[in-house]
């Protein structure tokens, strides 16, 4: 926050310069532009669009996410939680401690002729636990990897950016990118088809 702003010659604005965004009118131009940005070697940049664009991952060079592995881990955990919950509580003689100071008795009663350890009867519970934990991992894992929730974002200060959730597309370059140079990046964005350029100031 307290970083000193480098004096920009045209519009002096208070605060830290976060980067620069260029507005694009349609997907076609945006796609070509994204490929050019990728080929130039930019690392800290992003495309903003109102909907997921088919093929933009390749054009930007986004690597596949590790999310599926997180979900797999959670699913396996859910499977064993379900298995333990049913087998231990329904078929053991021992007290099954759950919390310090609390001991819970297993439910060893013969019901409808099922054996104490009747694995087929546990399948619904185990299955539901697997799905439940996987689903939680998929949603919350995704939001954490995306570093959301993050209610403050300097991008929201730009009036033009409102259309990023409507019908316009933006390419944003972070000022921390090693290739970022105010004037050159602005020119590059113009060259690859941006219809408007704006500086993002925090």
């Amino acid at each position, binding site marked *: 926050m307290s970083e000193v702003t480098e004096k920009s010659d045209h519009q002096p604005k208070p605060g830290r310069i976060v980067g620069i965004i260029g507005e694009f009118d349609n997907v076609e131009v945006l796609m070509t532009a994204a490929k050019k940005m990728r080929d130039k070697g930019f690392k800290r940049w992003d495309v903003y*669009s109102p909907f997921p664009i088919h093929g933009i991952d390749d054009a930007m060079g986004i690597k596949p996410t590790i999310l599926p592995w997180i979900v797999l881990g959670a699913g396996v955990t859910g499977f064993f939680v379900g298995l333990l919950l049913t087998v231990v509580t329904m078929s053991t003689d021992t007290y099954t401690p759950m919390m310090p100071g609390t001991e819970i008795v*297993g439910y060893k009663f013969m019901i409808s002729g099922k054996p104490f350890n009747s694995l087929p009867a546990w399948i619904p519970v185990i299955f*539901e636990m697997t799905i439940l934990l996987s689903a939680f991992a*998929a949603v919350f894992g995704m*939001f954490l990897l995306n570093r959301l929730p993050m209610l403050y974002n300097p991008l929201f200060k730009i009036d033009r950016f*409102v259309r990023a959730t409507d019908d316009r597309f933006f390419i944003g370059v972070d000022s921390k990118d090693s290739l970022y140079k105010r004037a050159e990046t602005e020119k590059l964005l113009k060259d690859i088809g941006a219809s408007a350029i704006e500086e993002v100031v925090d």
Partner: protein
Amino acid sequence: MSTISNNTHDSYEKNLSQDPRERAPLVTGGKDFSAVTSTVADLARGWPNIWWWAAFLFSSSLLAMLGGLLGYLFTTGTGIWGNNQPVAWGFPIVNFVFWVGIGHAGTLISAILFLFRQNWRTGINRFAEAMTIFAVMCAAIFPGVHVGRPWLAYWLFPIPNQMDMWPQFRSPLLWDVFAVGTYATVSTLFWLTGMVPDFATLRDRAKNVIAKFAYSVVSIGWTGSSRHWHRFEKAYLILAALATPLVLSVHSVVSFDFAVAQLPGWHTTIFPPYFVAGAIYGGFAMVITLAVPCRKLFGLEDIITWRHIENMSKVMLGTGMIVAYAYGVEFFIAWYGQVPEEQFAFLNRMRGPYWWAFALMIFCNCIGPQILWFRKARMNVWCVMFAAMCVNVGMWFERFVIIVTSLVRDFLPSSWDLFKPTWVDITMFIGSFGLFFTMFLLFLKFLPTCAMAEIKSVMPEAHAHSGPGGEAMDSEGRSDYQPD
């Protein structure tokens, strides 16, 4: 408003075009991205129209009635219902299975059609998912209050309690707790996750401070970053893949409540697939029941088009045939199995004291919806609504027939007794519609009714390279077209 709705006869015809060489538009009326945004966002932003207020007043008074009846039930006890011995279940479980079934179309449209790349789902999926959640809420009430002492309903969950006891995992009723609980949770996650980008759209368009604040919080800072979209789409795909077996499992587990019993008429292995098909049948009927008036009254005709209605009619026709087949198989197996009690149970269904419920079920589920075979009927709003209402009524009576006719006359004639619902039974069921419609109307007013981001992504302009005839191509020039 930025668009002029030029919803001519031409665009209807084009939208319904079955010509495989042409990609029929999913959004009609020549709408572009911002027109889609404003159509949906203006609903959440503006003052609701007179229809909304009329419907809201009506449904919220039904909801108030439900509240009063629940108070009466809690203070008096379950004796106010018509439940007796042998029909210890009765209306609460009929209503439970009915409402859980209604909830199926939502996840089916969202998850299964998503996995099958059925792009037409985008217009109605948000709608259907919302319906799922509200239907499951209605469903949850009935077994909850049926236990007699609802303030002890937490005994159903495997949590430490003062009696040092676990719940009974051998009981199908406890499987229900896990299945319906997981289903409600995962459906809600699926629904809320899908809404985050649309909340961001509403946040950026909100006029007053309170709305802006509320949408800002629920959109959790969504910017539409492609790096975010990448993970979002992966998560959505995984959720769909998880929800697909879940939607099939939940009603299968509900059917185990019956199938695991030894009662004639319930002890049937066809129950899981038959219940699932029936649930999808009833669920799609409810989506149609809601979508047909809503698109008209709230100006969503270009987004929920006749093509959607027609496709849903076809799904209804298909699942309806499965249900009719299952009815037939039940009778066949009763005859083929040569168990006298089983044979009696089915003859009793058809000719016993509840013959009228059986006849109504057959008419509403097997005969009425057959008009949808005709394209003219599928294109006619009254015919489609007639078929959907038939299924809504028929599916409730299906559950009534299964539950009541089997229980009233089982193995021993000495234990036979008839079941007669009381006025509380009937008004509580009507009251549950009050809850459902009140929630649904609040959803229509405050939340993004249609999945804007998903609708935009299936519009032709969303693709980088447009081939001849507006057909979208990918970067290698391959066609992206998938018939639906």
